[in-house]
């Protein structure tokens, strides 16, 4: 039996209106303690106003072996970038 605490991925919202962003991970025996550990590890310098923790085991990741099939086809689809539009000045966070 693995005696280590399970791993949790930590997401921090830097300020209201922003998305939560992945910042790292913590070990913890359960979700409540994972939140405490995330708070003590990742928000001690005013980094955020909200925290999420997610069991790392719940994350389904793409297979690196499929990288070519997954990601290479996007390389020459430059028209998918919104670079041909003028973004109004008062639209933030793009």
């Amino acid at each position, binding site marked *: 039996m693995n005696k280590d605490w399970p791993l949790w991925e930590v997401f921090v919202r830097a300020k209201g209106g922003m998305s939560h962003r992945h910042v790292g991970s913590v070990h913890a025996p359960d979700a409540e*303690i994972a939140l405490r*550990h995330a708070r003590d590890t990742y928000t001690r310098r005013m980094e955020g106003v909200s925290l999420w923790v997610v069991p790392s085991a719940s994350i389904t990741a793409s297979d690196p072996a499929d990288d070519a099939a997954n990601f290479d086809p996007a390389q020459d689809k430059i028209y998918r970038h919104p670079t041909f539009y003028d973004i109004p000045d008062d639209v933030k966070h793009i």
Partner: protein
Amino acid sequence: MIGTEPQSSPGFPGEGDHAKHGGGVEGAGARPLHHDASRRGPPPRSGEDLVLFETLLRLGDDSLILGQRLGEWCGHAPSVEVDLSLANMGLDLIGQATHFLNAAGAAEGQGRDGDALAFHRDVLDFRNCWLVEQPNGDFAQTMARMLLFSTWQEMLFGHLEGSKDATIAAVAAKAVKEVRYHAELSAEWVIRLGDGTQESRRRMAAGLDWMWRFVPELFETDALALEAAERGIGADPRKFRDDYDARIGAVLAEATLEAPREQRPILGGRRGHHGEHLGHLLAAMQYLPRTYPDATW
């Protein structure tokens, strides 16, 4: 220290003092409110505010000594995350101590600042309660101490937010949020260790048993504390004794732990009576600034 059983009570210097004076309000009347000649360190000049000075010392020394204790965990905690939790809480407490002791130095009016009070006083001049100087033991014992102290400190600071002393009110208002977290986190651990494995439960019960006899001192109200409360600068802890007992009782219930049996209380920290542990703590804490007075970093 892991697995150490609580020591038996004989030999604690606070007990004799308590027995003689009966503790509480009546007993404290026997203690002079002004420095006597035998007391170490310079006496305050006439007219200095001794009640304010001693009130600030009690607040500052509680935070300072527990902050130092938590610092001892640095690099030794069960995991790096817990290491950070303990160090964060320790630094919160050292920050509180800095404010309180700087203010104490100002109230004393002898030119001593917080550093001078922290690093150049001897053990008999410390005014912290016995609970905070208790050794870390294992993690469960540390969490028992943290729960019992932080829950009290949160309630105390809640009252001190309304202090007529502007510094005490301001520090309490800021620090109450810090210690609320300390109380919550330690409650979480007490619940998990108590309602955990057979081994964690045994250790949690032993840790609580060690700390239990130091709780009554938190609610001791001597003449000085009473005068501070009457002047509106301090708080009378008896006002929140029932709330405290209910909060601790609720945590223990969730942890499926029995409250330890009542033990003979140990008192006297506020009058400078301390256990053998405090001197060792001070030796480690004060060694560097005493040996290298000009050291800076």
